[in-house]
């Protein structure tokens, strides 16, 4: 019924927009050499690339959670001078061309980089290692987690945390028992998005980590290389990546709709009913 309230031309443009996104994917699916699809995606180099991509993306997601959750909490729950600038800087990898990210990482962690020489002194060499791939992926994926978690933290508000604190819970207990359970769905969907971004990382990896089968050649790099000699294999592998991406987006959507948030939503209005929370909040701050 609600579609009647929209002007018809807008719906037409929306359909054109949807076609613009969906048609190229359909075009690619039509190019797939189905007879050889399985051999193409199960070749040794393809499986190496897929395995490496999954492992590095999982590691990058873990790193994003470890670093991103505290970052989101600090951005959402504290106020300090220069916070807005810091937030913009943290989100910069979202808008930065990946190659630029790669160059930035190179000039920091590279052999002649800012920290590279220090690492070198300890016998750690990042260049051309799988660790370099994980670093590149974390660099580009981190903003996704920080952004979605910070938004959720602001939406949920501080009322429960304040109540918990007045009842004697330590800041760590409040974080563990109240804050994190409330934003768990956002954390999950943020993590899934980070995983997807890490999986698709190409430019920074190419610039920073190199490309060697089984060590640094992730699936996007393998597709890029296969295209040189075997476009069929490149298309088949692209389809694998598209399917993984669709699954990931579906999971993220599901996580966003998951029950903890609904429970949270139900609790928030209750909290608004109890008027005696506000003074507590003031005392806290």
């Amino acid at each position, binding site marked *: 019924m609600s579609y009647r309230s929209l002007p*018809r*031309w807008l719906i037409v443009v929306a359909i054109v927009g949807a076609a613009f996104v969906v048609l190229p994917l359909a075009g690619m699916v039509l190019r797939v050499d189905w007879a050889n699809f399985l051999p193409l995606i199960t070749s040794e180099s393809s499986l190496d690339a897929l395995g490496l991509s999954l492992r590095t993306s999982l590691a990058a997601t873990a790193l994003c959670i470890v670093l991103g959750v505290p970052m989101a909490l600090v951005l959402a729950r504290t106020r300090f001078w220069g916070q807005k600038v810091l937030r913009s800087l943290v989100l910069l990898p979202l808008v930065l061309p990946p190659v630029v990210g790669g160059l930035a990482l190179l000039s920091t962690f590279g052999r002649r980089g800012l920290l590279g020489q220090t690492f070198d002194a300890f016998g750690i060499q990042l260049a*051309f290692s799988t660790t370099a791939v994980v670093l590149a992926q974390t660099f580009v994926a981190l903003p996704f987690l920080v952004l979605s978690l910070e938004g959720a933290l602001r939406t949920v508000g501080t009322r429960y945390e304040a109540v918990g604190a007045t009842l004697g819970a330590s800041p760590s207990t409040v974080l563990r028992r109240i804050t994190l359970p409330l934003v768990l769905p956002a954390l999950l969907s943020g993590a899934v998005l980070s995983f997807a971004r890490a999986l698709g990382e190409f430019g920074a990896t*190419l610039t920073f980590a190199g*490309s*060697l089968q089984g060590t640094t050649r992730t699936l996007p790099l393998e597709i890029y290389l296969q295209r040189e*000699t075997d476009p069929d294999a490149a298309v088949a592998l692209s389809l694998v990546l598209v399917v993984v991406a669709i699954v990931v987006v579906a999971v993220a959507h599901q996580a966003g709709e998951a029950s903890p948030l609904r429970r949270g939503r139900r609790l928030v209005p209750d909290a608004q009913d109890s008027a005696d929370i506000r003074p507590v909040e003031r005392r806290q701050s």
Partner: protein
Amino acid sequence: MHGRRAETARRGALLVAIAATAALLAGCAGGASGSPADPADAPGTATSPGTAAPDTSTLDGSVTVFAAASLKGTFTELATRFEAEHPGVDVELNFAGSSDLVTQITEGAPADVFASADEKNMTTLTDAGLIDPAAPVDFATNVLEIAVPPGNPAGITSFADLANPAAKVVVCAPQVPCGAATASVEQTTGVDIPAVSEESSVTDVLGKVTSGEADAGLVYVTDIAAAGDAVQGIAFPESANAVNTYPVAVVDHAGRLDGATAVARAFVDFVAGASGRAVLSPAGFGAP
């Protein structure tokens, strides 16, 4: 309600009309680009050679040249010189990896001339019927050279030194021309390079060397010449085992006018002739 909906529909039609007009205008602008001073080469009115050309040259029109990325410097220079010789001609250049260009041309990109960094990619197009098998002319050769960062930190002096596992050596993947050349030199010499990375382009190999991440990389002589002081080149005699030949040819075009084909042929002759040599040799390219 009725009236408003009719009005919405009319507005919708108007928007579509505006969009269509904009697209048409953009199309027109595209067709006329690069030749505002010369209405003679507008589609449909292109002059055939010898007729009504106001300048001394008989050539008139534009030519779109698709050239391998390694030809960027030399072909930009050649295009400028060609335009100076033929004031009525406009040369449009498109540089990318040879295999990318082949994909673009097979997908219908409007190329008049294709200059490939290897024979394999040219063969792909002759096999596809987009280039006459007799058309390609070899105009240059290129050989591999070892690129090291200034100061040569790993002390590499020969091709055999690249087998040292302590040195971080970067090469091209065997799927790309420079990697195929590397593999064939490895095969003929029996030297097995434990590369830390197999990049998909020469540029990426060179980047790893100039940034100092790698101790050595295998690239073409011309890449080292173009990189200037950023890298040091070490020539090695074994490179003669893998000489890369660059062919150039006119791409067949169903709807192209004779005038445009004449310009394309003239450009191919220019590249393969003495003028081409004068620009290609200083850049490090060998004669075919």
